[in-house]
């Protein structure tokens, strides 16, 4: 019996990854220290090898002080998810991540009843039921006796918290990352509204669960595959992360791939920036630049030459069509970048 029931237990949906295990102590003071100014935030991000613009630092600053979620939009690969991860490292708070996808619903995002356990308990209690009802006269009395047991089956005991509920229950606060919200259905957005505006979730059987003393710092990311509803946007700060400019990208590469020689770094960033100007199906993002820098480092390159660029083009361009388009221009692009 048990085995069958266990068989129905669904795989855990939504990834949960605590980043720092137990150092959540004394974090409040630490966070207050970090968030006292935008400048401090920015420096701290840099210490964690996340080079951010003033805009991004301001967003985190406001999000913390106004207790508002941040909705991050931007092309793929500019570091939206990374921002949340770094923030969790920086604040030394656990990161709880909810990956969105089509069909995600409250059972996977907020809570689920441990129905296996419930079923098991019903079976077990069946035997004791007779004892409970012994001596009860008539239907009404039986029912009222049963009522005395209350709703034990729908108590916290039987509640399986999913990422959102878990985030609310974190004592010292946490960083909640709701990734790729645009992949979820419209209905799911509405589900988030209560959570995002009041940091609380209503569970019909139990009541309203409010956030612990420290509400979570919430990041939502979206790749803009569809418009996010106004209701959701209204509750969030809206941060758009564009592709970085030359100077910022160089610093990012420097932070992420420190071993790379400065001259090569300059050239490859210039090359990538040129590529972004071209009419491509998918322009290379920062993550591609970083990958490319690592690749070139591995190949012991000290400056860009057309042949090497041609050989490694598939690191930065992900469509054959784009590779073919760029191929003919490699020589010009390379010489431009080397200038």
């Amino acid at each position, binding site marked *: 019996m048990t085995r069958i029931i266990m068989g*129905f237990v*669904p795989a855990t949906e939504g990834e949960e990854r605590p980043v720092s295990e137990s150092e959540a102590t004394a974090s409040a003071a630490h966070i207050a220290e970090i968030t006292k100014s*935008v400048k401090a935030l920015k420096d701290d991000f840099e210490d964690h090898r996340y080079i951010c613009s*003033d*805009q991004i630092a*301001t*967003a985190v600053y*406001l999000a913390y*002080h*106004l207790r*508002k979620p*941040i*909705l991050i*939009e931007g092309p793929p690969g500019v570091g939206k998810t990374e921002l949340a991860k770094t923030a969790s490292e920086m604040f030394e708070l656990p990161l709880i991540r909810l990956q969105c996808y089509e069909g995600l619903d409250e*059972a996977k995002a907020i809570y689920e*009843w441990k*129905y296996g356990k*419930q*079923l098991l308990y*019903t*079976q077990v209690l069946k035997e004791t039921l007779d004892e409970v009802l012994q001596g009860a006269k008539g239907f009404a009395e039986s029912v009222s006796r049963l009522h005395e047991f209350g709703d034990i*089956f729908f108590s916290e005991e039987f509640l399986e918290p999913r990422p959102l509920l878990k985030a609310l229950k974190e004592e010292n606060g946490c960083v909640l990352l709701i990734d790729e919200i645009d992949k979820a*259905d*419209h*209905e799911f957005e509405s589900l988030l509204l209560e959570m995002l505006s009041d940091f609380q979730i209503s569970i019909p059987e139990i009541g309203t669960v409010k956030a612990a003393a420290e509400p979570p710092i919430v990041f939502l990311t979206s790749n803009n595959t*569809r*418009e996010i*509803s*106004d209701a959701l*946007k*209204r*509750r969030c*700060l*809206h*941060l*758009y992360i564009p592709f970085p400019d030359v100077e910022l990208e160089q610093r990012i590469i420097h932070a992420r791939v420190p071993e790379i020689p400065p001259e090569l770094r300059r050239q490859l960033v210039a090359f990538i920036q040129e590529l972004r100007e071209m009419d491509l199906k998918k322009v290379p993002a920062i993550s591609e630049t970083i990958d490319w820098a690592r690749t070139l480092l591995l190949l012991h390159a000290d400056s860009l030459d057309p042949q090497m660029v041609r050989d490694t083009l598939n690191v930065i361009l992900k469509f054959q069509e784009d590779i073919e388009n760029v191929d003919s221009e490699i020589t010009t692009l390379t010489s431009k970048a080397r200038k």
Partner: protein
Amino acid sequence: MDRQLANFIRALRNLEVRISTAETLDAFSAVELCGYEDKAFLKRSLSLVLPKTIDEKDTFDACFDQFFSFKDVAGERAESSSDSDDAESEDAEGGEGEGGGAGGEPGERKTQASAGKNKKKKSKSKNPNSLDGLEEEEEDLGAGAMSEASSPLGQLLMNNSKVELSVATSQAGEAVNLKEIQVFTQKGLYTRRIMEEMGLADLNREIRELRDRGAVPDRRLGQELTHRRDWLREQVRDYVEKQFLLHADVSGRRLREELLRKVKLSNVEQRSFRLIQEIVFKMAKKLVALHSRRKKVFKRGALNVPRTLRHNMSYDGAIFDLHWKSVKVDRPKVFAICDVSGSVANYARFMLMFLYSIEEVMPKVRSFAFSSDLAEVTDLFSRNNLEDAIAKTLRDYSGGSTDYGQALADFKKLCLDDIDNRTTIIILGDARNNFGDPRTDIMKELYDRAKRVIWLNPEPRSSWNVGDAEMKKYIAYCHQADECNSLMHLERIVGNLLRTVG
């Protein structure tokens, strides 16, 4: 200052940035946190709170710069002094003394000011720019200290804080109801009113008094105040200009949009295309918002075991309330066949624009263009951006005389097999077939297979059957035939389409 923020939000709303009351409140709390001192910081903060799309962010950036632009007093002074004529030498030499005042170093200024008090001296100073229009030469007073201004506006000017000045200006603007400015001829009037509201009269009086006084620092102050007053007038004029653009210009634009919605699309001039496109996108967005919340249609499929068990828990595990794994029914396909020959091309342009703008709620649009031969242009739209795709379609297919029979035959050959009972076919054309064979047999076939066949005719209903028009024959095989020649029609039809195809 809060008033100014409220006004800024109003201006943003005028520029079609949607800002709710909740967001306004957020903006205020954000401002409370970051203050008004650091303009860049203020801008960054507000840009997180107010605009919520990328387009809106662009609008916001422009609007913010325009709204809160108040150039640095000192910088501006340096510029103006370098091209003013007679004040030249005085300014060049007096640069240091003024720099003390204008450079915003309060400590230095104070010491100079106190030093100035010791060496007061009577003399006269006139300014060519002063209001009373005296044409006397300005006296060279040399470098040195100035005394403190006494009138409120004078103090404000000498304080050298552009933020405070801009606050004062906008408060004055508020007081004289600058928002109500309607036509550009009112600009001068409002400039003057604002200056007066800010205390121009007092300032002028002070300048006059100072000029009559003997002490060099006093007269120096008088000169400086005069310059700064003129500079301020420029600023206020600028400010009025911008407010005019922010407030009055918008109402004109609204009017134009309203007109364009109703005008016949073939009469739209080339230069209005951009605006029309914007309107189309706006309408499309509205439709998307309206229809994206459509309820999912569930089909019975495999049993959803966990859910079933969970829901039947209350029945002691007896399973009688079944739950199914939900299957979302695919959105239906839409085939758009557009006549792109000369007379109808413009309509086709806007309909395609419309159809592809609502991609989000109508994902499967396949489009075909013809004048004589028909070809599928779906690929063009997936590869290029909307404008290019439309331009290319019109370029490639618009030649040749219209032949509906041929087009229908081509369509049948191309994709009759793809048409099923979830397909909606929209045909846009005037049905003027140049007396060729209308091939109604194919129309019948389409009519039988498809869920809906909709014919949109840009001509008024009265001329549907005049001349070489075959509308009468085709209409028998259409579920719906509508006149469609303005954006309003288009919006209504696409709206209906979305309602019926779900």
